[in-house]
């Protein structure tokens, strides 16, 4: 089926007059009433060589977008992205990389959830259905990327598009609310505007998308690929 789509797409490109560039039909807003589709597989490509160790543009943009307020306890304050600094002790090579929910194709958090709250949407976005979350935090223990947080106390001033409250687990939604409206995740926008332009967002299932072309032609890696969870977030330069 993938092949057939590719052929159809290629045909469509060829039908364009020569010289007309096809602007990657990326992230068009989904029509109202239409469900997320397995034809898409949203992902991120992060070039760590462009990611500054001191830069936190993505982290602060995420906090603002999602309305994540601090309760003054950095160890338990919710975070959807964190910057992780790694060093190779032998060579001294250092990297700084943003780590968020990796939106795995085979998410461990979904496997362990006793209520079906941890879920993967058809387009590959891994979410917590907070309507079903009982706050047991099995998913937090199962996640090898430490991507999820727990809301420990009452919240106020939530964003209308991101309800969040006490007693439930939460994590990066890949900005599903923006993707559904045809926009880019907030971190990607902020990285391009105020950071090093290290993040690329797109549809890995669409062979003509910039992200799919790059992962097809350049060496990329996934964190802890050995676990076989098949994350949708890929890194370059580590």
């Amino acid at each position, binding site marked *: 089926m993938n092949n057939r789509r590719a052929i159809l797409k290629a045909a469509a490109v060829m039908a364009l007059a020569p010289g007309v560039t096809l602007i990657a039909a990326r992230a068009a807003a*989904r*029509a109202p009433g239409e469900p997320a589709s397995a034809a898409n597989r949203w992902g991120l490509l992060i070039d760590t060589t462009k990611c500054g160790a001191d830069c936190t543009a993505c982290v602060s943009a995420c906090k603002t977008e999602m309305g994540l307020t601090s309760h003054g306890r950095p160890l338990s304050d919710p975070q959807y992205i964190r910057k992780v600094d790694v060093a190779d002790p032998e060579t001294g090579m250092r990297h700084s990389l943003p780590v968020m929910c990796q939106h795995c194709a085979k998410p461990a958090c979904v496997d362990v959830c006793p209520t079906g709250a941890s879920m993967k949407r*058809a387009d590959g976005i891994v979410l917590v259905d907070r*309507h079903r979350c009982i706050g047991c935090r099995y998913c937090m223990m199962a996640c090898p990327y430490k991507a999820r947080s727990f809301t420990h106390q009452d919240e106020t001033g939530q964003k*209308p598009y991101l*309800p969040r409250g*006490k007693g*439930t687990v939460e994590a990066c939604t890949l900005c599903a609310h923006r993707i559904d409206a045809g926009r880019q995740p907030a971190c990607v926008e902020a990285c391009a505007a105020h950071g090093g332009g290290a993040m690329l967002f797109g549809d890995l299932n669409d062979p003509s998308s910039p992200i799919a072309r790059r992962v097809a032609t350049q060496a990329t890696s996934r964190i802890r690929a050995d676990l076989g969870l098949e994350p949708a977030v890929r890194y370059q330069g580590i």
Partner: protein
Amino acid sequence: MRAAVLAILLALAAGLALGSGAAWAEDGRPALPKAKAGPCIAPPQVMRRSHYVMLLHQRDQTLRLGIRGGKASLKECVACHAADGPDGKPIPVNAPGQFCSSCHEYAAVSIDCFSCHATTPAAPQTASSP
């Protein structure tokens, strides 16, 4: 609680039979702040009876299937039904005497939706950010 609800619905039906939808607020039953815009997503009789069925259906549709733009959106209820205070700022829709709470208090219903969901409409700048 079931009895209270039945009583409401019966009283409601009587009110409607008399042809006065506005009778709701005039006989000791809760007064509801007026909506900011209209019309509602369904006639008032339907809304009173079935709003929570619609809401609970749509929350699964939106969150689990990713369907946007359905009419029974909690965001949209709040956008229309959160009244403005004297200072021009919106009053939380679940504050005492406000739209969702006045009625629920009367009918002894308690909902947890607003421990997560925003109780006032989006500020204009977030609504229109690119």
